[in-house]
C-alpha cells in the first residue's frame, strides 16, 4: 500500500512535470539573486554560499507543500484515504516520500552546480549535497504537518510558512553548519549525525502528527 501511494504520487508528478520544474527553477533563481544583490566579490560569496543554498532550499521545499494534500483534498481523494483500512500515517509517510522524491531530490542534485557558482571547493560541495540529502526529507515531513493543518484555509500558502519555517530552523542550522564546518577545517560529522537524528525522529513522529492534523482538517 505504501508503495502504491508513492507510485501514484510519482505518476501524478510525472504527468505534471511543470510543477516539479517550477520548484527547481525557483530554487535556482533565488540562489542566483544573491550575487546580484550583494556584489560579485568571491570571498564573501564563498562564505555566504552554504546559508544561501540552504535558505533557498527551505523556501523552495516550503512553496511546494501546497501540492502535498491540496489536490487530493479538492477532488475527494483525501476523503477516501481517511476511509481506507490502511493506517493513515503510513499513507502520509508515502505521500511525504513521494513529495521529497519529486521536489527534494531535484534540489539536492542541483545544489552542487549552484555551489560551483559560488566557488565552493570540491569537498564543501560534497558536504553540501550530503547535508541537503539528509535534511530535505525532514523538510517534507515537517512540512506535511503544516500542509495538513492549513488544508482548505484562506491564505493557506502564507500561513503554512509561518507555521513551518520556525520548525525548520534546526535543520537549517546544522545543514548550513556542516558546510561551514568543513570550509573552516573543522569536523563536520556531528552536524550530519544530528541531521540524521532529526530525520529518524521526524520519520517516526511527523506522519503521525500529520495524520492527526488531516483528521482535524477534514472534519
Amino acid at each position: 500500500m505504501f508503495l502504491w501511494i508513492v507510485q501514484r504520487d510519482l505518476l501524478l508528478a510525472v504527468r505534471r512535470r511543470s510543477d516539479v520544474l517550477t520548484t527547481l527553477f525557483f530554487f535556482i533563481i533565488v540562489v542566483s539573486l544573491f550575487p546580484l544583490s550583494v556584489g560579485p566579490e568571491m570571498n564573501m560569496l564563498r562564505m555566504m554560499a552554504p546559508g544561501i543554498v540552504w535558505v533557498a532550499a527551505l523556501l523552495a521545499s516550503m512553496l511546494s507543500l501546497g501540492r502535498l494534500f491540496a489536490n487530493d483534498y479538492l477532488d475527494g481523494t483525501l476523503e477516501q484515504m481517511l476511509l481506507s483500512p490502511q493506517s493513515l500515517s503510513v499513507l502520509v509517510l508515502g505521500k511525504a516520500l513521494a513529495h521529497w522524491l519529486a521536489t527534494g531530490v531535484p534540489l539536492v542534485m542541483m545544489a552542487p552546480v549552484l555551489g560551483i557558482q559560488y566557488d565552493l571547493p570540491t569537498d564543501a560541495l560534497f558536504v553540501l549535497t550530503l547535508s541537503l540529502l539528509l535534511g530535505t526529507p525532514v523538510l517534507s515531513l515537517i512540512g506535511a504537518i503544516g500542509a495538513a493543518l492549513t488544508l482548505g484555509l484562506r491564505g493557506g500558502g502564507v500561513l503554512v510558512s509561518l507555521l513551518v519555517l520556525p520548525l525548520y530552523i534546526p535543520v537549517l542550522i546544522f545543514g548550513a553548519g556542516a558546510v561551514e564546518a568543513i570550509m573552516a577545517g573543522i569536523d563536520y560529522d556531528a552536524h550530519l549525525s544530528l541531521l540524521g537524528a532529526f530525520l529518524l525522529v521526524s520519520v517516526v513522529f511527523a506522519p503521525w502528527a500529520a495524520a492527526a492534523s488531516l483528521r482535524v482538517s477534514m472534519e
Partner: protein
Amino acid sequence: MLQGTNLACVRGDRKLFESISFTLEAGGLMLVNGPNGSGKTSLLRILCGLSSPAMGKIIWNGIAIGSLGSEYYLDLTYIGHLSGTKDDLTALENLRISSALCGTKITDMQARDALENMGMGGREFLPAKILSQGQRRRVALARLLVCRTKLWVLDEPLAALDVSAVKLIQKLLEQHLKLGGMIVMTTHQKIDVTAASTVQLQLA
C-alpha cells in the same frame, strides 16, 4: 447491522439536526431525505466516521465505530459528492488506484471489466480531464463493482447520470441488497429499488 442513536450535528452556531436514531439490518436500504442544507451530507460523513457527531454515536455490529477504527473501513465504501477522480490519470488508473486505497487490489482485467460494465468500454485509457461529468461519475461508481464491502454510503450517486446509467446503478444496488449488503444514500431523484427493508429518514 448499522445503528445510529440520538445523533445531533452542529455547524457553527446552528443545529442541523438532533435526536436522529435508526437501525439498518442486513439487506436494508436507508434513504436520507431533506431539503438542501438540512445536513444530509453531514449525516453521511458522520456515518463514515469522517466527522464526529455533537451527540450520540454510530454502532456497527454492536460496537461503536470510534473504537472499531480501521476495522470499520474494511466493511465500508463511501462515494461522496467529489468523485475522487484524478484529472491526470486515465479512467483505468483511477479505478485501480481508488480500489487499492479502499483495500481491494484489482488486476488490470478486473478493472477493465468493471469499466466495461459501467458503459465506459473503449474509454479506459482516456485521461479523466477530458471525460464528461457523467462519465467521471461512472468511473467513480465502477468501484462499487469491484469492492467487497458490506456497507455502501452514497451521496447523490445518481447526480449527473443519464437514464441508462441510472438503470444500471439501480440494478447494482438491488443486487447488493439481495446479497445481504446495506446501503445508505441520499438522492433527489425517484429511485426504484426493491429491498428487504427500506428506512426513510427525513431531515427537517
